[in-house]
């Protein structure tokens, strides 16, 4: 248990842990680790409830193979939040800053500006994840380990774009 009270572990130990966790998820749930599918099915279920006559939603439901569901992967998402909460608490870490240091240095201390940036960034990122049917977990880790052609195309394009975009964002910054 003393390991849990540490602030951080070696990235290699963490990586090996995630690798071993993926054996477990393949052996027990028969599924790879992934995060973003539940966001899509939750959004679809919400739209179905709030705007059942919206034709785009009906066309989506009729043709897309992701159906609204409460499944293993939804529970996985809740677990990630809870596990991180417990891990941070055990170590006595509580990050309460609303504006990260690096963001504040470049874009100023405004909280609404950071929230707006995070919201827009999150929306763009998730739209892309659902276009590609995966993210840094589903493609970057799970797909790469399975030697999936899709993931070996997604990961380098994603990494290069993210590196170029962050360079463009921080080019004139102090960094």
């Amino acid at each position, binding site marked *: 248990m003393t390991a849990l009270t540490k602030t951080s572990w070696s990235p290699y130990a963490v990586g090996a842990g995630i690798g071993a966790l993926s054996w477990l998820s393949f052996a027990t749930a028969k599924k790879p680790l992934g995060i973003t599918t539940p966001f899509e099915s939750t959004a679809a279920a919400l739209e179905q409830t709030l705007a059942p006559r919206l034709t785009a939603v009906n066309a989506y439901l009729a043709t897309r193979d992701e159906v609204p569901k409460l499944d293993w992967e939804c529970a996985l998402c809740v677990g990630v939040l809870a596990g991180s909460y417990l891990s941070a608490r055990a170590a006595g870490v509580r990050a309460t800053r609303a504006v990260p240091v690096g963001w504040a240095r470049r874009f100023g201390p405004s909280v609404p500006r950071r929230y707006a940036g*995070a919201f827009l960034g*999150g929306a763009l990122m998730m739209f892309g994840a659902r276009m590609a049917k995966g993210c*840094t977990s589903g493609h970057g880790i799970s797909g790469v380990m399975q030697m999936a052609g899709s993931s070996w195309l997604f990961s380098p394009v994603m990494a290069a774009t993210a590196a170029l975009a962050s360079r463009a964002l921080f080019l004139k910054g102090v960094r």
Partner: protein
Amino acid sequence: MRVDSPGRLLMGLGTGGAFGVLLQKGRAAKYDVIVDQLLLKDGTVAKIMGTAAAVGSFGVHALVRSGHAKLEVKPLRVGGIVGGAVLFGTGMAVLGYCPGTTLAAIGEGRRDAIAGALGMLAGAGLFVSAYPKLKPVLEAGDFGKVTLPQATHTSPWPWVTALGAAVLIGSALSPARPRRFAALRALFR
């Protein structure tokens, strides 16, 4: 709406819990760690992802070989994959978290990650609405659920070994001090 059995949901919760602990202990739930990785000033995230893929690869292929699991890969559709990767990378650079680490960052108490998660839900909703029109673009260049060993008619084991070797060599070359990836960073200048 399809609902999994309570046992399966509990299993997901446990697996996710362990994943969350690992992401938090790996310092991956922090904006500055992720942005420094994207700027090639820090290698933490690359080390975590590389090691996870290499270690996972051995076990998963062993499970498949012994008949205890089946591969679950996403289809290689060039339109959706390339378009999605570009939007994903751009969005991640602005948000400073990836989807899994957004959830872990909320667990750690980072309030900006809550705005990120709400944005993610909005982005998913926008995708659902745009899907019927987007479908032809997403499915352009469809090669199906193919793996690199299948496409080249080779055994997966040389691939698994090469991935493991690449991560080992990378970790041996990685300097412990700052100014990591100095050569690579020079290329961007």
